[in-house]
């Protein structure tokens, strides 16, 4: 067996064992499950920071700052002049390092500065994000209630559009608590939003269950086909 096949085999064997360990939780919580659960958390928490450094900090910040993106040709000339403005990245880097003062009782106020700054930036980004997301959605919700296709009235499309607009307005109205619920038309219409919401929740539930079951089927197939075959090949049955 060559080294590639050995690594693939080890991957399948350990993957199957890990899957069985996680599924053993269905019987009851046990040491086997907890071991692999902790292993998963360890890998996940190590992978995130490494990906931030590898895929963001290094190519977008460190490389341009150190001038590593500038190609030096064999005669000593360069593809482009070094941009010293990249050194300005040192300011947010140093500012970001203030996070680590959170461990100091005396200087933890420095960490609060950077936390506050980040919160402010996130708030402003969220304001922009709302309009960027909601704007096109609101615009596309104004659907024509009578639809003509090739000059003929399309009853189905018209019905769909009318139902869409009615559902949107009724559900929005259901969540409108600010004023005028009691006795007004708006208040009387509010209960109509509930059944439509329930249809939406039902569809969500169905989609979620199917997505999870698809994963379950894939896991079972992996264990039954790949893992059993791999175990068989190791113990000499395959």
């Amino acid at each position, binding site marked *: 067996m060559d*080294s590639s096949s050995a*690594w693939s085999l*080890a*991957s399948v064997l*350990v993957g199957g064992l*890990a*899957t069985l360990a996680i*599924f053993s939780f*269905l019987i009851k919580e046990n040491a086997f499950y*907890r071991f692999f*659960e*902790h*292993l*998963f958390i*360890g*890998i996940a*928490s*190590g992978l*995130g*920071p*490494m990906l931030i*450094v590898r895929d*963001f900090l290094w190519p977008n*910040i460190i490389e341009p700052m150190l001038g590593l993106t500038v190609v030096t*040709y064999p*005669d000593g*000339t360069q593809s482009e002049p070094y941009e010293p403005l990249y050194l*300005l*990245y040192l300011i*947010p880097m140093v500012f*970001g390092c203030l996070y*680590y003062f959170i461990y100091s009782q005396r200087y933890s106020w420095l960490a609060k500065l950077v936390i*506050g700054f*980040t*919160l*402010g930036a*996130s708030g*402003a980004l*969220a*304001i*922009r994000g*709302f*309009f960027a997301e909601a704007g096109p959605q*609101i615009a596309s919700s104004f659907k024509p209630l009578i639809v003509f296709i090739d000059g003929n009235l399309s009853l189905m499309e018209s019905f769909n559009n009318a*139902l869409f607009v009615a559902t*949107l307005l*009724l*559900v929005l109205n259901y969540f409108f608590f600010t004023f005028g619920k009691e006795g007004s038309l708006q208040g009387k219409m509010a209960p109509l939003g509930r059944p439509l919401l*329930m*249809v*939406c929740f039902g*569809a969500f*539930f*169905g989609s979620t*269950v*199917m997505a*999870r*079951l698809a*994963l379950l089927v894939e*896991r079972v197939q992996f264990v039954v086909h790949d893992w059993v075959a791999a175990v068989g090949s190791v113990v000499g049955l395959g």
Partner: protein
Amino acid sequence: MRIFTFLGGVYFFLYFVLPESAVTAIGMKAHHEQISNGFIVIGAMAVGLGIFNIVRAHGSRVVFQRPGWFNSFALLVGLAAIISATAVQWIESTRNSRDISSVQVLGEFATRITDDARTPPTDRVVPPLAQRIAALVRYGDERTELIESHTNLSVEAGTNGATSVLVGEVRERLAAARVKLGELRAASWERLTEDNATLLTQFSQDAAKLASSYSIIKRSHDAHSTSQKVYDFLFDGLFNQLGSAMFALLGVYIAAAAYRAFRVRTVESGLMMMAAVIVMLGQISFGKEIYENMPSLRQWLLEVPNSAAFRAIRLGAGVAGLMLAIRMWLSIESKSFSSGRK
């Protein structure tokens, strides 16, 4: 503190509210990517905090052998293994990328020489043409030797059908590049004639082709390196498998919880159950056996009533999010968390 929070949001707010002409005029548009990166850097610098906290909490449990120390040990092993594997694989792939780009430089340099000879640059000083060509030829000789030795190493490591074709292609292009290097060496470079320019263009094209074939061989060779295999083992063999198993496990619990909690007692809960059943049956072939139009019905349900209701929920949640964002940016929300107010 509040002024820092406000300042943190000023840039993005201004970038959003100012007209595009103003954003362009004051240079914000040109440097937006770099400025945004600067903001991300601030958050990215906190990556060590998470690792530090994990190591501190679980490390102390291992050192003092508190209950569950073995699980903490497994967590730390997983953490250390993925960090080392990713780091080694990254260093190797960076080294290889530099190796590949050092070959790509050949073609780029030849093109640059032609361009500079035709339109002499005013913003920088370039050496005389003959000197640049000598440097190009010398560098070309070095790179072709390097490519040859790496290609031979790949052959020694074992080749399959696809790699043999690639190796043949690299050798063919290597020979073509060497012929062109010989012609470059023999030509006179007092000034750039049309013949010389054509020669440089041809060499540039050959070098680009060589670099492209070489990069395929190099990357296929790297895909079989030990560091890549260890990384794949941890990522595909453990991380992906455990993640899928965790999510699949939740599927069982969702179904079990639904069985226990859902009682179809009212019209509304009946509607919910009906929608769920239609969506589930419409996704599997068995649903089509029950009712031929089940997939279309599912599609309609998702696209019309579900899409409209979900849009209303998102708009409502979005407005709430907007209010929260404004309160957060203007530090109005901070009062709720301040120690003085309980």
